[in-house]
Every structure is written in structure tokens, then in C-alpha cells.
């Protein structure tokens, strides 16, 4: 059993509003069986904890999954390579975000920058299971999703600096990371806006298989979004459509309890988001999002479900962001006690501990990875610093895929043929 140390802490929250949810949380639910397994998700916390819990049932997911796996002798969930890959990815995410904060305060990037510190387990746990052709759709908190999907740190950092070598040529910015090569479909500023796009990507996958007869097309799409989004219409509309047409998509809720300053419990009538899945006919699973191995186990099953054509899954990852909502957020509303409880469950520390205790790798090897990542991040900053800013001529280049869309000018020629256009000085 992995991670018992890190995960048995099922710490109560001191939010007063929770009291009204007392009974509700205790008498939890046997949610609809996860993909046919008869294992019920059980409460794992000991009775001495009072009812102030985030959610009633948790975490026995690894048990549910394990029941399906034939037990081989070592009780390890990952191999050494996998462990090191996961570790490296999470450290990259963390180091990169920390560097972003530094660069922001030094005036190298501007605007709204949303950092992912603390949530690395979700990104790594899910995205490292994907193939290159699988798609990921994210929100404005997308740097680490981009990195996990394979977008080079250099490209992401340049994009943040607004340089032309950025993954979106400097035109997107922090909240709009896209990569065609790595099938990262964005980066969206409005919450909920990416979920239909993800649904569309999943639709294409199904269409390719059934209409275009590409029989081995089994591309899966992951849609990442937060707890605040789960009160938004687009979320529900897409749950419905995805379940209706059995689209190969996994809806991943990164429930970090806070939507800027709005606590999830203050804004949601039923805070247990995973329960909303069965209402639409798909399994809803809750998992400890601070534990990368647990996330990975759930992700494996959800993604293979989608690949097999069995339809979507709703996965709620209980996680936490160590920093404010964005670099402009003073983060005064959150209780320091709550923060420290979650900091104690830092996913990177937990994985490190697991790797060392299971003798998968030595401390030295992990330190080597730390060092390597520091170099990668330094190099990314250097590259971004040295990259050129977009020239004026870039202004009008990507407005239309077909620049005839700018129309016909008074002289009878298409406006895009006007040399001022290529210089970027024409007015549109």
C-alpha cells in the first residue's frame, strides 16, 4: 500500500460552513462502482477525526484498482524508471513555477500568471500516461500541463517573456499555452471555456475511428479544470454530451478548494464533485491529488476506459495550491493552518520518500535530477532572455488562417497583398 504516511492524514478543515454538511459527509455514499469493480470506496480516516472533512469517502481507489491486478511479489506500484520520470516531471513543474515567480517580480513577465505549486501530482500523474497524439486541454493554470505534455521549458518561458520564440510566438501569454506538436489544445482564460473544446477533440477521435475508418485511432483527451468551474454550465453540458456519445475523454477536476477567494464550500451546494458523474451516467471517482501514485492508478484506469471506447470518467483530485490564485493575489483569506497541513503533504516530498524507502533509487540520484532540472530552468530563462521580441510585422500575421479574410481594399487588391500589411503598419 503506497503512501500511507502521507495520505492517512485526513485533516479536518476549520471552515464553519462545513458544519451544515456534517451528516452528509459521514454517511457517504457508495458511489457507483468504478468501472464494474464491486469495491466500494471507503472512508479511510479513523473515527477519532470528527466530521469536518473535505469529502466523505476517499482514497481506497488504489484498493479498488488493486483488486483487479494480479499481485506480483513486490508490492510496488512503479518501476524505477517510472519513479524517476515522475519525480523529474514534478520537480520540473515546481522549479519552473518558482522561477516564474522570480521572473515576474523582476519584471520579465507581466499580466496574470497563475502558478501550479502543490498540484504537480495531478499533472504528472495523468499526463505522463498519455501518448503524443492524445490531447490535453487546460485552463489559465497551464504552465505545468504544458511541460508535462512535452512542450520544452524554453518554449514556455519564452512565451511568458513575450518573445517570438515562445510556443505561441509571444501572442498567447501565460494563459494561452498551445502546442500543435504536443497536442496541447490550450490554455483558456475563461473558466469552463476549454471543456467544450476538449469534448470536440474527443469527438474528432471518435469520428476518425467511425467515419474516417482509422480503426486504430484511440486518442484520448484530458480536460483539466478546477472546482470553481464545476458550478459552470459548460461543465454540465459537456458531461452530458460526453456521456451521451461515449466520447474518449477524462474530465479531471483539480479541486484545490479555492476559486481565487471563494471557498468551494461557500459556492457549491453539494461540494462532492465526483458525485456529479453518475448523475450523467459516467463513473465519478475521488482521489487524493497530493499523491502522484494514487492519481496515476486512477488515471490509468480512466484513460484505458476511454481508449476502449467505454466513455468518459469524472475524476476529482483533492489537491491544493501552495501559492495564491495568481501572482497578483495577496492570498489573505486562506487559513495558514490549512496551508501548512497541505504543505506537509507536498507531493514531491512524498514521492521522494516513497522512492527512497522502497529502494527504487538513491538520494544521490534524486539530487542529480534536482540539479539537472535547475539547469534546464536556468537555460530556459537564458534562452528566453536572449530571444528577440516580436517585430511589428508579426502583428497581423495570424489573425486569419487565410489572410484573404481581411478583405478587398479600395484599389481592388486583397488587403493582405499590401506591403504595409507585412510590415504590420496597415490599419485593419
Amino acid at each position: 500500500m503506497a503512501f500511507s504516511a502521507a495520505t492517512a492524514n485526513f485533516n479536518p478543515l476549520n471552515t464553519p460552513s462545513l458544519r451544515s454538511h456534517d451528516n452528509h459527509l459521514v454517511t457517504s455514499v457508495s458511489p457507483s462502482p468504478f468501472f464494474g469493480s464491486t469495491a466500494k470506496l471507503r472512508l479511510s480516516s479513523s473515527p477519532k477525526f470528527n466530521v469536518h472533512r473535505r469529502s466523505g469517502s476517499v482514497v481506497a481507489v488504489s484498493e479498488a484498482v488493486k483488486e483487479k491486478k494480479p499481485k506480483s511479489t513486490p508490492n510496488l506500484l512503479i518501476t524505477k524508471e517510472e519513479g524517476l520520470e515522475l519525480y523529474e516531471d514534478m520537480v520540473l513543474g515546481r522549479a519552473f513555477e518558482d522561477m516564474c515567480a522570480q521572473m515576474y517580480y523582476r519584471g520579465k513577465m507581466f499580466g496574470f500568471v497563475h502558478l501550479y505549486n502543490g498540484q504537480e501530482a495531478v499533472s504528472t500523474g495523468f499526463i505522463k500516461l498519455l501518448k503524443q497524439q492524445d490531447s490535453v486541454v487546460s485552463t489559465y493554470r497551464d504552465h505545468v500541463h504544458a511541460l508535462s505534455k512535452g512542450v520544452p521549458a524554453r518554449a514556455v518561458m519564452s512565451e511568458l517573456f513575450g518573445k517570438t520564440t515562445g510556443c505561441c510566438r509571444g501572442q498567447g501569454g501565460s494563459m494561452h499555452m498551445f502546442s500543435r506538436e504536443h497536442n496541447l489544445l490550450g490554455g483558456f482564460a475563461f473558466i469552463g471555456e476549454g471543456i467544450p473544446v476538449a469534448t470536440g477533440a474527443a469527438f474528432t477521435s471518435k469520428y476518425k475511428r467511425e467515419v474516417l475508418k482509422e480503426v486504430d485511432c484511440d486518442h484520448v483527451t484530458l480536460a483539466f479544470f478546477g472546482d470553481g468551474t464545476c458550478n459552470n454550465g459548460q461543465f454540465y453540458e459537456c458531461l452530458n454530451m460526453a456521456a451521451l456519445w461515449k466520447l474518449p475523454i477524462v474530465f479531471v477536476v483539480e479541486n484545490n478548494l479555492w476559486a481565487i477567494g471563494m471557498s468551494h464550500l461557500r459556492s457549491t451546494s453539494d461540494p462532492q464533485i465526483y458525485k456529479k458523474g453518475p448523475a450523467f451516467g459516467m463513473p465519478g471517482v475521488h482521489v487524493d491529488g497530493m499523491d502522484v501514485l494514487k492519481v496515476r492508478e486512477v488515471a490509468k484506469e480512466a484513460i484505458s476506459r476511454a481508449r476502449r471506447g467505454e466513455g468518459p470518467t469524472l475524476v476529482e483530485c483533492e489537491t491544493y495550491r501552495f501559492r495564491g490564485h495568481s501572482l497578483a493575489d495577496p492570498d489573505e483569506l486562506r487559513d495558514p493552518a490549512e496551508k501548512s497541513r497541505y504543505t506537509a503533504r507536498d507531493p514531491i516530498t512524498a514521492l521522494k520518500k516513497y522512492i527512497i524507502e522502497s529502494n527504487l533509487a538513491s538520494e544521490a540520484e534524486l539530487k542529480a535530477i534536482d540539479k539537472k532540472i535547475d539547469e534546464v530552468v536556468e537555460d530556459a530563462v537564458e534562452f528566453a532572455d536572449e530571444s528577440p521580441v516580436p517585430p511589428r510585422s508579426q502583428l497581423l500575421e495570424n489573425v486569419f488562417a487565410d489572410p484573404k479574410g481581411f478583405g478587398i481594399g479600395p484599389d481592388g487588391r486583397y488587403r493582405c497583398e499590401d506591403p504595409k500589411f507585412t510590415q504590420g503598419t496597415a490599419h485593419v
Partner: protein
Amino acid sequence: MAAIFQGVGAAATLSSSPSNSFDSNNSFLSPPRSFSVGKGASFSVIRSGGILNLNSKGRRAQQLISNAVATKADSAAVSSSSKPGHELLLFEALQEGLEEEMDRDLRVCVMGEDVGHYGGSYKVTKGLAKKFGDLRVLDTPIAENSFTGMGIGAAMTGLRPVVEGMNMGFLLLAFNQISNNCGMLHYTSGGQFTIPIVIRGPGGVGRQLGAEHSQRLESYFQSIPGIQMVACSTPYNAKGLMKAAIRSENPVILFEHVLLYNLKERIPDEDYICNLEEAEMVRPGEHVTILTYSRMRYHVMQAAKTLVNKGYDPEVIDIRSLKPFDLYTIGNSVKKTHRVLIVEECMRTGGIGASLTAAITENFNDYLDAPIMCLSSQDVPTPYAGTLEEVTVVQPAQIVTAVEQLCR
């Protein structure tokens, strides 16, 4: 029916076009005047709205305008020697265009409410679900924002969806997706993803449909960067624009009008498209330029009948491309007549007419002999009562008065 003659002055603009169908997917350096000239594309009768079939009493002897609608035929095409074409209604033309594109490219698919089994609330997709299957003609739940977004996601990943808004007004619910993702995503992704989507649906003021079903969304969408907007008005241009929109790599919003679906016309048998960025010369003239689109074209043509009887010679242009404007056709006309009247169905405030007025003033101010007049619908929610509804939109009598005023 009609043998058609063009006014001498107007011949220049049309006959300069090569007679091949223009494929908008080719390089953008192809000549802008390449109209979609099909052989035998002579217009005959347009059953609703005005038809001119008269001997002009125009002031200049050269003008023998026996048909209000200018021909698309150039010197090579004359009715007798070419294929006769076939007659159909506007919604059938849309369907034909859609079906031909779906046959031609497997990636083209349709999504919308009741497009599949029901055949579309205005029958534009009738029979398509039977032919192409439920996945290619997808009946969606009532969730405009989400299925439009789904269409956008599908477009980004390789398909070419046609999203139908059952009524254009419903697309207000999809504004988030249309503005942010449809229009801007190509740019914010640095050109990595294209959105070759077509969003279409019927809009405009119908027969007592009530305020919410009578909306003109072109004015709301026109500021969105990155999209193109076209409005069809005849079966010929409906089919042509539908096909061009589907083939275009840009996101295109195709505005249809609820009252025009039953217009009948004879269109060519062969493949043709209508250029998305060009305007259509409806009736060449000398005295005043009347710019219009969609249903108002027919009110204008009806007014034109009266005007011609009174001795005026209006030049009528159906602008067709609402965004961007075809400043060449419009400019040439302004330079000729020096007077402009815009007739539109949009609201007065912030409508297409307002933008067009600004564009003409900016570019052709020196050529104007009089201030531009713009006739639009009143800034009033369309009332249900027939008498009131009639008064909110522009009627032919107002157009006649406006021209008389302009030409004083």
C-alpha cells in the same frame, strides 16, 4: 425566361472576371475579381421581392435595363448554348451545397439542434442524416455554448464542422465560444491551430416571431477579430457562399434569413462557389448607390421598380460580405454615383450600416456629393403585432423617399 442586357457602364465590372470557378483554397494571389461565373447562370425570376422587367425610361438612352438583377454571364455564357441548370428553393440550394461538400470531403460534418432526424428546422439538412449517418449529422442537446465549443475543438483537431444555430438568436448563448475561441484562438495559439468552422443559421425579422426570435446578430459579432461574416440572399449565392465557407480555412459565420428560404431560382448544374469577400452587383445604375444585404435586397428592388418609373436609376449592390467589406465594388460605385444609401435590417445603433458608413466616409469622402444616408431598423425590440413589426423594419416606400431626398 429573361434575356438580360446590362447597362453599358456596368459591364466593365463583371466582364473582367474570368469565367472559372474560383477555388478559395489556392494562393491568395489569384485575381480578386474572379467571380464565380457559371455558365447559364442567368437569373430568371425571383418570385418574392421585386423583379424588374420593364423598359427603362431612364434618362440616358444607352441604358436598357430589362431585368433588375444583373446577369452573371460574361461573353462566353449565354443561355441557349450552355446547360440549363436546375430550379430550386433557397433552402434546397443550401442543402445541395452542404451535401456536395460533405460528399467531397469526409471531414465535413454538421452539428446542431434537430439537424439530423428532424432534417433541420428549416429543412436545410433534410435527408442528410439518412445519407451520412448520425455522427456526421449530429443532433445535439440544447447547449449552444458547448456544442459550438465542441465544433471548435473538432475544427482544431482536423474536422470541418458546420454548426447550425436553430435561430441565429440562440447563438447569443454561444458568444463566449464564438468570440474567444472561434475568433481569437488562431491568433493566441500563434497560428498553430486553424478553425475551419462554419456557423450558420436563420436570423432576421420574420412574420411576427416575437422579439427574441427576430434578432440580427451580425451587429454583435462584427467586432470579433478573426472571423468572416457573409449573408446570403438568393439561391445562387446561398449555395455558393455555403460551399466557399466550408472550404475556407477561416471561421465563417453565414447569415441566412427566415423569410428567404422559399425563394426559387435557376442555378447552374456545375460546381461553383461565390467568393466570400466580394459584393454582388444586383442592378447597375448611375444616380445613387444603394448598399444592402439579405432580405432588404428585395425591399430595395421593389423600391427600385418605383424609382425607375419615377425616372431614377439606382445602382443596387448586395454587399454579401458583412465582414470584411468589399471596398472595391463599393468604392467603384461611389465614385460613379457620388451618392450612397444604405438599407439594412440591423438596428440603427452599432449595426452593419453604421460600420459601412464609417468605412465609406474614411475611404471615399472626396467622392461624395451628399452625406451618406442609412436606413436601418429602429432600436426597438421587434414587436409581435404585425402592424408594429412592419414599422420597425425598412419598407420600400421609405427607400423611395430616401432616394428622392438624396438625389435632390
